[in-house]
């Protein structure tokens, strides 16, 4: 099985697939008369013609109700999809028309998904670029930064000071700790569900409650972790308040992460073909080894995806971290002592309570800069996960 399944390359005479299909080069000497295999087929330029027609039609409609570009494109796209369907239906047959319709809808779905993506990314990059290019943005924390400097910065008489060092350190540590806690638990639990439970009642209960767990609001997870750690610390006679540490936040995040890891991993393990398990078992391999060495590597790409999703989810959480790890302007490398800052908390507070209320601009710049860094961080993680997955994944080829 391939890591990233390549599309099946049976082109249905649409431009997007034609470029990729392994067609033989067109024979130089075409037979006289059209091939019966292409008989009744729409000419190649049909999509372009329909597209042009759709845009014209759309322009006409827009002329009636007032022109705007977005409306023109949207109505044009709808007209194109409908137009292609009708033309294919009339000129060819229903199956081809349906195929084309779905293809267009699927491509359309992709384009629709790109719209918010581009919009959000544009917002973040446009606003955040200035932040991350501030000198010292990554190296400094917010110690000593007060509204005075921001006011000066906004007035143009000083640089924008302060940075995200403390928040970045906190986010990395807290997220790493949460990952270290949740991924093994999540993986093991999903292995239990798929490989060991035989679908017994206990596994059904776990599966059900894991689903329920996915719906716990993050703030509740945070409050829970704070309360839990307080109880634990009390048990060991620590000072109240000593539980406000990075580790508490990591536990809160784990409560959010675990169900995501379990659910995604479970699905990925489930689609590993049984014949592989049997092949391994028949060689006298113990089940745990089979699981670790045959099943997991086969599913690794999907598992990596799920874990990345889980990390991406928690790395952006604000409320649970604030109520567990506190709020600080100084860099703290210690997960089990003192307050710790995290990037989302930083972003949230820079946005909502600017350092200088009269001059929020520098805070905004720092906030968006932090957001951009956070996104870049997750993307790097994603790349890393993909690299790991590729490294462990099935060698591709073959039927």
């Amino acid at each position, binding site marked *: 099985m391939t890591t990233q399944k390549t599309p099946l390359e049976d082109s249905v005479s649409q431009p997007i697939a034609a470029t990729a299909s392994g067609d033989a080069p067109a024979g130089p000497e075409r037979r006289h008369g059209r091939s019966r295999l292409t008989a009744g087929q729409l000419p190649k330029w049909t999509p372009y013609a329909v597209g042009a027609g759709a845009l014209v039609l759309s322009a006409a409609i827009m002329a009636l109700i007032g022109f705007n570009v977005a409306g023109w494109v949207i109505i044009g796209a709808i007209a194109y999809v409908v137009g292609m369907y009708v033309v294919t239906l009339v000129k060819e047959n229903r*199956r081809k028309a349906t195929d084309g319709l779905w293809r267009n809808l699927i491509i359309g779905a992709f384009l629709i998904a790109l719209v918010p993506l581009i919009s959000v990314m544009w917002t973040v990059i446009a606003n955040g670029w200035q932040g991350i290019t501030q000198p010292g943005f990554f190296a400094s924390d917010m110690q000593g930064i007060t509204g005075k400097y921001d006011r000066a910065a906004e007035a143009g008489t000083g640089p924008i000071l302060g940075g995200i060092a403390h928040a970045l350190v906190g986010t990395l540590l807290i997220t790493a700790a949460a990952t270290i806690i949740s991924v093994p638990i999540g993986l093991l639990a999903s292995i239990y569900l798929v490989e060991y439970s035989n679908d017994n009642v206990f596994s059904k209960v776990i599966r059900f409650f894991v689903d329920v767990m996915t719906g716990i609001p993050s703030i509740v997870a945070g409050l829970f972790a704070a309360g839990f750690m307080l109880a634990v610390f009390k048990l060991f006679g620590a000072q109240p308040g000593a539980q406000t540490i990075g580790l508490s936040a990591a536990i809160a995040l784990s409560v959010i992460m675990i169900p995501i890891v379990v659910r995604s991993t479970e699905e990925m393990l489930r689609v590993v073909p049984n014949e592989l398990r049997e092949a391994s078992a028949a060689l006298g391999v113990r089940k745990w080894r089979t699981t670790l060495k045959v099943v997991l590597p086969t599913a690794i790409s999907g598992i990596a995806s799920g874990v990345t999703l889980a990390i991406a989810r928690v790395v952006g959480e604000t409320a649970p971290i604030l109520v567990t790890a506190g709020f600080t302007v100084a860099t703290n490398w210690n997960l089990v002592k003192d307050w710790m800052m995290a990037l989302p908390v930083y972003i949230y507070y820079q946005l909502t309570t600017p350092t200088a209320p009269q001059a929020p601009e520098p805070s905004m710049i720092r906030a968006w800069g932090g957001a951009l860094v956070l996104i870049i961080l997750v993307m790097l993680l994603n790349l890393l996960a993909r690299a790991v997955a590729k490294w462990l994944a099935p060698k591709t080829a073959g039927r």
Partner: protein
Amino acid sequence: MAKRIDANDLNVYYGKFLAVEGVNINIEPRSVTAFIGPSGCGKTTFLRTLNRMHEVLPGAHVKGKVLLDGDDIYGPGVDPVTVRSQVGMVFQRPNPFPTMSIKENVLAGFKLNGKRLSKSDADSIVEKSLRGANLWNEVKDRLDKPGSGLSGGQQQRLCIARTIAVEPSVILMDEPCSALDPISTLAVEDLINELKNEYTVVIVTHNMQQAARVSDKTAFFNIAGTGKPGKLIEYAETSTIFNNPVEQATEDYVSGRFG
């Protein structure tokens, strides 16, 4: 209904690897052609080029022409779907749809035509196809059970039933009987004999006796060595291939101890 197939100078690649080289072959309509040859020589590979299943694999492509009744199936603008609905295929490994019942499996291809099927029509198609594949008696009481709960041989016959239900012009079969017991094999061979009246049939087999029994013409493929491409060595009437082949390699192969 039956169509002729001609391959001209066909080279078949997996990415950069040339798996089959320079095949020229003319397959007559209403005939049974058998492909024989040692394992790994490219029989499956070549067979899959005849209905454009080959290109489904990433990087796999062909050079040359395959003509279906004179029309190049690799010609510009040709839709592989059109080709495949005319050239059906039974795979070397049985592959019933696991989420479908036995009945749905049989009707899977047929339903694609989108013609509304009355229940009685559907039933008669299912019965006819399953009888054709000699599976009817074994499964008639559990048509609504999943196709994956069948034994290996039963699955293979289910796939045969599924393919003939569509009634394509050409039927390609990749070792259709390798998982079958003699009785089922016999039934499938009978089926092939029957199909020949209306369709063009191409079958890959390791069983020389089977090739001798069912085919009109036989193509012998061979491979010179590892990493080399497979080639069509000899293609002639089945009796010629088995009794006085032109090539030494053919003679060696067919006179080896029979499988």
